Structures are given as structure tokens and as C-alpha cells.
């Protein structure tokens, strides 16, 4: 028996985080919102299984990201539609930099440094090895340090990654 109260509590506890992470992944507030909401709808359809997962939040995040990724790769306007960080905001440079990362690297970075997941958790979530995740993180950080020159010192503590 599905319990709406359990789902509602889960939604209330996690949805803002997932939205935040989807925004970091997509750079598009509207798309992040749409894909997040759709992912929760899908979670409710499979709530018995999702609620029993190791991390239901990771399930929703991964689903939302797949939705966003699919729309990006096959959707109208292609890559240009992702360049929608709010103009004039201080985060625009970070959003633009994230969008230059290959999608798997971007996912690893966001889940590691925003969601706080351990490398092993990311590996399990993405069906790959911890070494691969480490590799993606290293490449992503190197790229970010290169394309955010003003942040190099901050990002690396004065050391090249």
C-alpha cells in the first residue's frame, strides 16, 4: 500500500536539494524545475521500490538528470538552450563553467561537492568503478580550475590540481 504521507515527507525533505543539484547540472532553472517534478512523479509511480532503495534521493536525482540529459541531447535548440544562467548573477560564470564539462564529469562533481556523496556512492549510483569516478572528478576539477582563472587560487589553494 502506497502511503502518500511517506512520499510527501520525502518530497518535502529532499525536493529543494534535488532542484538545486539539477540546476547545477543543467544551468537552466526551468528545466531543473520540470525535470525535478517529473522525477518525483515517477518516484511516486514506483514508490514501493523507490522507498526501499538505498537512497531514494539519489534515485530521484538520477532520474531527473536522465530526463534533463535526454532533453538536452535530443531536444530543440540543442546545447544553446543550456546557456540560461540568470544574467547578471554572480553564479553565471560557475554555471557556464559547469556546462563546459562533459556530462559524466559534471554529474560526478555536482553529486560529490554539492550533494556530498562519497566516491563509492557515486560509483554505485552511476554503475561504474570508484576509480572511474575519481578520474572524472580529477578531470573536472582541472577543467574548472582552467576555465575559471579567477578562482584558481581559491579552487586549488594556490596549487595546480
Amino acid at each position: 500500500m502506497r502511503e502518500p504521507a511517506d512520499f510527501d515527507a520525502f518530497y518535502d525533505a529532499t525536493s529543494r536539494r534535488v532542484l538545486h543539484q539539477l540546476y547545477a547540472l543543467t544551468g537552466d532553472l526551468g528545466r531543473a524545475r520540470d525535470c525535478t517534478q517529473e522525477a518525483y512523479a515517477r518516484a511516486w509511480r514506483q514508490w514501493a521500490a523507490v522507498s526501499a532503495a538505498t537512497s531514494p534521493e539519489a534515485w530521484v536525482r538520477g532520474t531527473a538528470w536522465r530526463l534533463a540529459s535526454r532533453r538536452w541531447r535530443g531536444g530543440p535548440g540543442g546545447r544553446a538552450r543550456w546557456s540560461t544562467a540568470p544574467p547578471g548573477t554572480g553564479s553565471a560564470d560557475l554555471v557556464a563553467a559547469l556546462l563546459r564539462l562533459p556530462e559524466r564529469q559534471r554529474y560526478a562533481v555536482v553529486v560529490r561537492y554539492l550533494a556530498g556523496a562519497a566516491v563509492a556512492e557515486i560509483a554505485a549510483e552511476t554503475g561504474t568503478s570508484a576509480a572511474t569516478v575519481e578520474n572524472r572528478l580529477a578531470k573536472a576539477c582541472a577543467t574548472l580550475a582552467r576555465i575559471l582563472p579567477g578562482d584558481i587560487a581559491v579552487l586549488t589553494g594556490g596549487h595546480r590540481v
Partner: protein
Amino acid sequence: MSDNLDDSLSRRLSSLESDVAGISLPGPAAARRRAAQRTRHQLTGGVLAGVAAVALGVFAVSPPDFVASPDPAGSPSDSPTPTAVPTTPTQSPSPSTPPVEPSPDPSSGESPGGGEDGGSDSPTVPAGALLTVDDVENDTSEAWAEVDAGASGLPCVPDIPGDAAAVAYESPYDSHIEQFVDPADGAAEARLEELRDELTGCAESGGDFHLIQVWSLSGVGDAGYLLVWNGPPTTPDTQTYVTASLVRTGDFVSAVFHGGPGQDYNAPAQPRLAVLAIERLCGALGTECPTTPEQERLFPEPTGDLDGWLTTDDLAEAGLEALTDGGQVLDSGDEGGPTGYGYVAFTRDPLADGAELLEQRQYGDPMDPGGPILIQERATFADAEGARAHYAELVFEANQFSQPGDVIESTGDVSVPGYEAATWRAEGSGEFASVFVYGAAVSENVVTVVYYGVDQVDVPPEQMQQLLERAAQRIGG
């Protein structure tokens, strides 16, 4: 990696919170309703015609609640008490009208058909002809309650006709369903058209009113329509969306209006309420009626095939029979138009290479918005030489392209008098496994690319090659 980097990156990423602070999510109840309403369905064939007996329309944020299984017309005790009771008596039906023999409704002292006091020209609506609360109950633990008919407040919903039987329900989430069954002796066909005209006229009246979809409906009763529109009341985040399910059988017209607040409407109108309504009505009439819906979109009017572009027959030959809805052509000057090739492996910029025009057309399944789409793009150059040079660079770079985890293979190329074409296939792995098939072709002064994210239907290399050859052959019209 240093701890400083970890901390700095975490802080920077966390700072994005300020961007999302003003973004509201619709809430868990909206997600559950969306889940209840979004059921995949299959197009069973025919251009813009489909059977969709399961799925429901989607109000993306705050959709009207809905709906139980389409049980056949139940016992009279299943029927709600109509809130508008005809005052006219039964009359002998026309030859085309099934016999009207109202059965008593044990749940009510009132018969929806009235029926004892003669004097009217209209047939009487039989008991049990209206949707029941069980019909409209959804499966997400959200109850509907019967309310007074005629008070839904939904935009453009007409007053209940004087001879009609009516019923209305309301959900805790401010969604409404209102139905009336209107007896129209010998004039049901005209009454249906009149109702459709009235609704479309209102929905196209401007201001906050917008007509979204109109479908003709066959296979449900004698004929019908599905209409979707939005209108007031509006808030900064929502508008009121309404779906009308209009069907006629014999001398009766049933109109069901289903609406509530939402942010957009992103699915084709679904015939389930029309089917439920006709099952109830025909059950009450004691007749058998068809309940196998097929719908054809009337508005927005389908674009159809266009000179110079792949046709829906071309796509069907490639196995993509469901992609029957070719959209409008957008060019790089249009809002939302292409600024470069939309697929990641096409790294060459046609405009930077001298293309004078870049256009894009999408092909989708009209019954599955948000589902699989195939995209074709055309870059038009000043001359064939420019197009050939760009094509050569495009193919070269596509052959070099890679993404970690993707296995990309060239699946063929062809060079014949008049055109050249090449195709590829990219398969991902792991959690994000996805398959894309794509290709490029050149003919005359036009380079075209085609790409498709494989969903339920794959396109094998041979068919993709054929599709690209078709695309090349279509260039120039």
C-alpha cells in the same frame, strides 16, 4: 585533490542556492497527481489517429484529479443524484434514438428523467446516465466529493441546458469535473457542433483565454470532440486549464468538463472521460455503443510534409511510424531556433563555415509529447562548393568525436552522383546508457543532419542510411 579545493568547490556550488531560491516547486500532491495521470500509451496506427484508452492529459503542476477504471455502466445505485432534473416527460424517440426507458434510481427519490408529466419535445435523460463518483475517483487517495452542478467556475463552461441532467464533483485540490447530458431530439449532431463552436469561440476570445487543442473523436458513441483551453482565474504561477469531452449518441449529447489550476498542458487530450461518459449513457439507455476511441487533431492544425524535408513516410520506412507530427520549421533567427547543430557529435559550426541559413524541424509522436523525437537540420550555403567543404569538415570531426563511456561507430557512408551521406551510432554504458543514431548528408548547396535518441524503437544502420539518403534526395524539394 586538496581539501581547499573540496571546500571551495562545495561553497561555490552551494552558492547556486541563491539562483533557485525564487523557484517554487508544485509540491508532493501535484507530483502524485502527475504520476496518476501520466500513463504511457501506444499509437495504434494511422496518421494522427490513435487509440488512447488509458492515458490522461497532464496538467504539469496542478492537474485536475482523476480517475478510476472505466467500469461499464453500473447498477442504478452507482449513479449520483443529478443536480438538475429535467422537468419534461419522456417522448417517443426518433427512429435513430435508442429506446429510453428510465430505470428507477434507488439512491434518489428523483428520477433524472422526470418522466411522468408529459409535454416536452425532448427525450428524457435516463437515470444512471451520468458519471459517478467512483468513475472520477483517482487512485492517489484523494477523494472527490459531489457538489452543486453549474458552479464550477471553470472558464468557458456553459450553463446547464434546461432539459439536461447534470452532476459535478470537486477535489480537495480545487479541481472540478462537471457533466451534463443534454437531450436534443433529432438535433444531437447540430447540438454537438454548436457546443464545440461555443467553446472554441470562448477559448479564442483573447486576453487570458487560449485554445490549446481540438481533436475530433470517433469510435466513442456516434461522434465527439476533445477540446483543451486555459483561461481565468489566473495567478502569477497558474492558469485554469479545462478539458472538454463532448460525445453524442442517438438523441443525446454528453459534455464533461474537467479543469483546475495548472502551469501548462503538455499532453494530448485523452478520451477516457468521453469513454466513461458514453459507457454510462449507453448503459442507462440500454444500448451498446462503440468505446474504441480514435482521435485526430484539428487544432493546432498539423503542418504536414514540407518540400525539402523528410516526410513522415520517410520516417515510417525507417521504422518510426509513430513520429507523424512534423513541426514548424525554425531558423536561426527565430526565438528557440537553432544556433548550431543540436547534436553533440556535430561539432562543426555551419554558420561559422559560411552557411546563410540554418533551419530545424522536429518530428514527434502527437500522442506522446515529450517522448521520442527525431530532429533534422538544414544548413544552406551560397553554393554547392561551400556546402561540400563544410560537409567534409563536419564528417571529419564527427568521425573524431568521442565522449567518455560512449562507444561510437561509423555505420556507413555513401557517395553517389548528386549527394553524399554518412551515419553513426553512439551507445552509452552504465547508469546513463543511451543510444543515438545520427547522420549527415550533402546535396546541392545544402547540408542536412538528422539525429534520433533511440527510445522504444531502434533504427538499424541500414535504415538510418536509407533515411539519410532520403534526406539528401529531398533537398531541393
